[in-house]
């Protein structure tokens, strides 16, 4: 189990290669990577603010809940803060489990909670000015699946 909150970029492929490898009790590995999206071509950069200390605590609590709920062999969460360009990775979650359903569900659980319960705030800077990304009702609703 590892949690990293960092400003530096990372390579999801390299992270996946080193994750839960050589373990014979693992049958399924799921990874999710979040990328800075710029559908309209008007985004210059994204800046992510976070709450140092609370971020690490909140993510560690999510990982602990996931580990108690699903049979997981390993779990990795990386989340960046600071400035990043379109196409760059924002964050990554990886889960390893004996069975595929546990690996998928735990990864989705962690993603849903990271979206709405980890203290990160995204601000977009583009050709039309800047603005804070607003939270979506559907992200809040997604949490009800896990109650």
């Amino acid at each position, binding site marked *: 189990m590892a949690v990293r909150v960092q400003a530096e970029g990372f390579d999801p492929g390299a992270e996946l290669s080193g994750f839960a490898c050589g373990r014979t009790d693992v049958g399924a590995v799921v990874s999710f990577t*979040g990328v800075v999206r710029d559908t309209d071509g008007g985004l210059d950069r994204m800046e*992510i*603010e976070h*709450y140092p*200390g*609370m971020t690490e*605590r*909140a993510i560690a609590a999510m990982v602990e809940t996931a580990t108690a709920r699903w049979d997981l062999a390993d779990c990795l969460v990386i*989340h960046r803060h600071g400035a990043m360009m379109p196409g760059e990775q*924002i*964050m990554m979650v990886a889960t390893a489990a004996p069975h595929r359903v546990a690996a998928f569900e735990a990864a989705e659980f962690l*993603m849903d909670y*990271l*979206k*709405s*319960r*980890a*203290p*990160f*705030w*995204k*601000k977009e800077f583009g050709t039309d000015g800047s603005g*804070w*990304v*607003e*939270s979506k009702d559907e992200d*809040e609703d997604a949490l009800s699946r896990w109650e």
Partner: protein
Amino acid sequence: MLDVMYFAWVRERIGEPREQVETNAATVAELIEELRRREERYALAFSDLSALRVALDQELSDFDAPLDGVREVAFFPPMTGG
């Protein structure tokens, strides 16, 4: 004496990321009332509580939570991680 922190647009409206606040407020709601009365920028930042979240000592909490024993209060909009 409370450490009060602000993030995202709450920080921008207040104009600073953190400050020390001398208060006798018993709850988060009382603290917000005190801050609101201070200056226009606070009134603006705290104008719509439905758009705000609060953490006490780095744990998400509620506006009616007591401040007894709390050292760090943080106000911010709904989170947008992931």
